């Protein structure tokens, strides 16, 4: 708590805490509310602060922050007014982020489990143990017996050396990351529709749009700074926000219209919107004829519930007439019956997209992505924008938001997924050849087949196939679905578990070796945010004890395993050296990355960075120098230069409420906490504002069940149970027949209850829908 050094006594300290509580409460009522003067006020009088720029540590928005340091300590944070992302705004998590690094239980030294107890061990010795164990496992069981599970919070250099170590040096594709749990459907959506990952637009769309339609997305709590920019446009220009969701949230109440749908039926409603667009002749015919083609894929794909589940789609070209025929099953009248969205509301949504004089941006995040048909849902939103030609223009476009600070920069661009390489995929010979050339390894070293995606990786640990796993900056034993299976799996003797992290977590509790990781501002790095913006920061303060950047720990282990030649980086400049090597993968007009000297000077740059300029709108010849077909638009990710409108049907969820388990369970986040809470629960003001999870009821359901606010409720599924206090008419309001539980609380593990079903194409699990029963505990 030395953040506010002017605090000299307990009473002043408590006053400061009280003020922060009030500011937190205000921030959750008014997303993006700015108390900047308070940040200045907390700075010691006469302080000689050195303000250093960087991106925020938390969500995927990528707000620019300025961290004030004095005498080697971080003492204040404020929004970077020069950042075009947040223009000086920060949310409540952003303001208080540096307070967690001073937590008393910070992991400062390596811990090695000996005879069931953790023993403080010099880092060099711990890294010897990790390297020896990894080498020994490969020697005894083969290279596919070792695995690494990284994070969308890993920096770009960290992801890059992880990929190089696993795929280039060791020669296994057993590398996946927690972005599989949040972003994989967005990736497969982009790749199937456009052949190129990541949004075509940027945050500046907010300043141009007339309508924002949010799909299953509570931006007021999850992306508060962007939402406050939208609210500002509402006040300034009268833009409208339409919230389409399964739960009434703070976003719904701040919107102009809230439309609720039955879980899973977003698939049908999206098709009904397309039906209406075609029926009313709102199709932008010349755009569709020039720039789109039509395809269909396999249906009834299953849900990945069984181990070793495999699926490969078989796309087939169709024509517009066939697509129109398919949509006949999705008239608003038919869809209204099972989606519980009125015919009028479906027609209203279609009319917004269909009006050629209105600019529309669609936003979505976990509601669409964490879906057993997540890829399809992404495709369907693109269909709407493609049919109307509302895409790749200022204020017009589909925009998939990310949850982690470098889900895009690291997980998706560097490619810390089993099937990915820094450029392209392991299945593609040319991509393997490029990686082999830049990594200076024989091309045969890089396997051509993907192995385990996240869920299957932990199933393989359970089956005893993976005998060594190393996780970094992630907490899978809180965040995986159906943790009731994977916790005992990780505790098995058959698998050696290495966890590098900043704080102890339920995942580090099962580790054989715990490595102390440096926190964000204790190392240099780069993140990539939701709008393709790459941001660099320099190390601002020293890490405590022997805490070390993950990238450097990977390099040290690689050297110990005999791969030193492939990792010739220096400790002082490894971030710069790695980034410069990595940039080679993306050279050219389609994905060129800004040089480091530019990123050091500016608050980030958007790729493709061409001739000293960021590209804000891809695929639009006016803005994107990679367009080369002589037309206004060029979807160059596809060989024929055309984006694909996909025929994707409605299919049911794998598990629906029934007599024994009569409620839908929806899980998610709250504004105060970031993901599994390992950082934000160590920030006193945030922890105090939201100390524990809860189960939210619709008041009618609570009345029927005789449940009162605060009463302990047992939420059970076929997989496990969790006891939480009831919450009625507080933060959010689920629809009748649904309960909602946030997942940040490691003492109330709702993921023991969730289902590990996933989208067969993206392999991203669905945390939003399973069947539960609720009873008084």
């Amino acid at each position, binding site marked *: 708590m030395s953040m506010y050094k002017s605090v000299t006594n307990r009473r002043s300290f408590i006053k400061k805490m009280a*003020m922060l509580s009030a500011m*937190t*409460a205000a921030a959750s009522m008014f997303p993006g509310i700015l108390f900047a003067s308070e940040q200045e006020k907390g700075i010691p009088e006469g302080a000689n602060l050195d303000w250093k720029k960087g991106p925020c540590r938390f969500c995927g928005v990528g707000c620019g922050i300025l961290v004030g340091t004095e005498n080697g300590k971080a003492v204040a944070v404020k929004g970077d007014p020069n950042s075009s992302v947040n223009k000086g705004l920060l949310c409540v998590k952003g303001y208080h982020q540096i307070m967690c690094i001073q937590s008393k239980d910070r992991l400062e030294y390596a811990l090695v489990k000996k005879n069931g107890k953790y023993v403080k061990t010099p880092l060099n010795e711990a890294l010897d143990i990790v390297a020896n164990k990894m080498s020994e496992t490969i020697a005894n069981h083969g290279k596919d017996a070792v695995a690494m599970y990284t994070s969308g919070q890993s920096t770009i250099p960290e992801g890059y050396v992880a990929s190089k170590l696993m795929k280039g040096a060791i020669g296994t594709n057993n590398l996946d990351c927690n972005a599989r749990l949040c972003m994989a459907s967005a990736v497969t959506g982009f790749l199937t529709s456009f052949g190129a990952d990541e949004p075509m637009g940027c945050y500046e769309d907010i300043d141009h749009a007339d309508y924002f339609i949010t799909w299953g997305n509570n931006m007021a709590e999850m992306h508060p700074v962007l939402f406050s920019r939208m609210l500002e446009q509402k006040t300034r220009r009268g833009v409208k926000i339409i919230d389409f969701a399964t739960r009434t949230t703070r976003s719904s109440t701040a919107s102009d219209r809230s439309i609720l749908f039955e879980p899973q039926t977003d698939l049908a409603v999206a098709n009904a919107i397309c039906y209406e667009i075609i029926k009313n002749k709102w199709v932008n015919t010349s755009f569709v004829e020039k720039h789109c083609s039509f395809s269909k894929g396999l249906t009834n794909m299953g849900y990945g519930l069984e181990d070793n589940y495999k699926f490969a789609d078989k796309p087939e070209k169709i024509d517009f007439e066939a697509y129109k025929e398919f949509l006949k099953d999705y008239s608003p009248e038919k869809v209204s019956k099972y989606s519980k969205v009125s015919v009028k509301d479906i027609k209203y949504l279609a009319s917004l997209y269909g009006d050629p004089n209105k600019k529309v941006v669609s936003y979505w995040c976990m509601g669409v992505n964490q879906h057993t048909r997540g890829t399809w849902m992404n495709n369907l939103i693109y269909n709407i924008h493609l049919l109307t030609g509302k895409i790749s223009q200022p204020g017009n476009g589909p925009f998939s938001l990310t949850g982690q600070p470098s889900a895009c920069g690291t997980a998706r661009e560097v490619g810390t997924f089993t099937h990915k390489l820094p450029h392209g995929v392991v299945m593609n010979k040319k991509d393997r050849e490029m990686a082999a050339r830049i990594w200076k390894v024989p091309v045969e070293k890089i396997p051509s087949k993907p192995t385990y995606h996240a869920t299957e990786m932990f199933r393989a640990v359970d089956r005893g196939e993976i005998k060594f796993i190393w996780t970094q900056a992630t907490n899978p034993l809180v965040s995986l679905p159906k943790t009731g299976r994977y916790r005992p799996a990780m505790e098995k003797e058959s698998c050696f578990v290495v966890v590098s992290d900043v704080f102890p977590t339920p995942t580090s509790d099962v580790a054989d070796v715990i490595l102390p990781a440096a926190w964000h501002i204790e190392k240099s790095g780069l993140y990539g945010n939701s709008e393709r913006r790459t941001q660099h920061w320099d190390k601002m303060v020293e890490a405590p004890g022997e805490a070390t950047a993950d990238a450097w720990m990977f390099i040290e282990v690689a050297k110990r395993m005999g791969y030193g030649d492939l990792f010739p980086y220096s400790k002082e400049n490894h971030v710069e050296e790695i980034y410069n090597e990595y940039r080679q993968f993306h050279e050219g007009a389609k994905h060129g990355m800004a040089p480091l000297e530019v990123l050091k000077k500016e608050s980030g740059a958007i790729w493709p960075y061409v001739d000293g300029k960021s590209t804000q709108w891809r695929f639009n010849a006016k803005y994107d120098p990679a367009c080369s077909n002589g037309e206004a638009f060029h979807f160059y990710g596809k060989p024929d230069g055309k984006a694909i409108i996909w025929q994707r049907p409605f299919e049911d969820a794998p598990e629906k409420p029934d007599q024994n388990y009569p409620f839908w369970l929806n899980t998610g986040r709250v504004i105060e906490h970031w993901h599994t809470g390992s950082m934000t629960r160590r920030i006193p003001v945030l922890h105090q504002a939201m100390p524990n999870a809860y189960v939210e009821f619709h008041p009618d359901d609570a009345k029927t069940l005789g449940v009162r606010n605060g009463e302990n409720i047992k939420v059970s599924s076929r997989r496990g149970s969790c006891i939480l206090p009831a919450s009625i008419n507080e933060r959010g309001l689920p629809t009748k027949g649904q309960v909602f539980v946030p997942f940040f609380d490691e003492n109330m593990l709702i993921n023991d209850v969730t289902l590990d079903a996933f989208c067969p194409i993206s392999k991203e699990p669905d945390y939003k829908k399973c069947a539960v029963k609720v009873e008084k505990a």
Partner: protein
Amino acid sequence: MPIKSYVVHSISGKKEELITALNNLSQCEVVSAKNQDVLALVTDTANEQEEGILIEKIEAINSLKLLSLVSGFNTPQN
């Protein structure tokens, strides 16, 4: 020795007036939001009775729209 915090909403356009009125009360500490008609307020009083009297004074301020309690602490002086 209660320390309490509140979110205070001002009547539209009267935020500055409300800040001045609250700053005139010695037991109040105010931080104003830059972009909303909202203030964060901390009160520091000797006992609950004094706190009660203070709240009555605050509620009598014309520019006040809504006073909403966030947290309360009871602590010995220093």
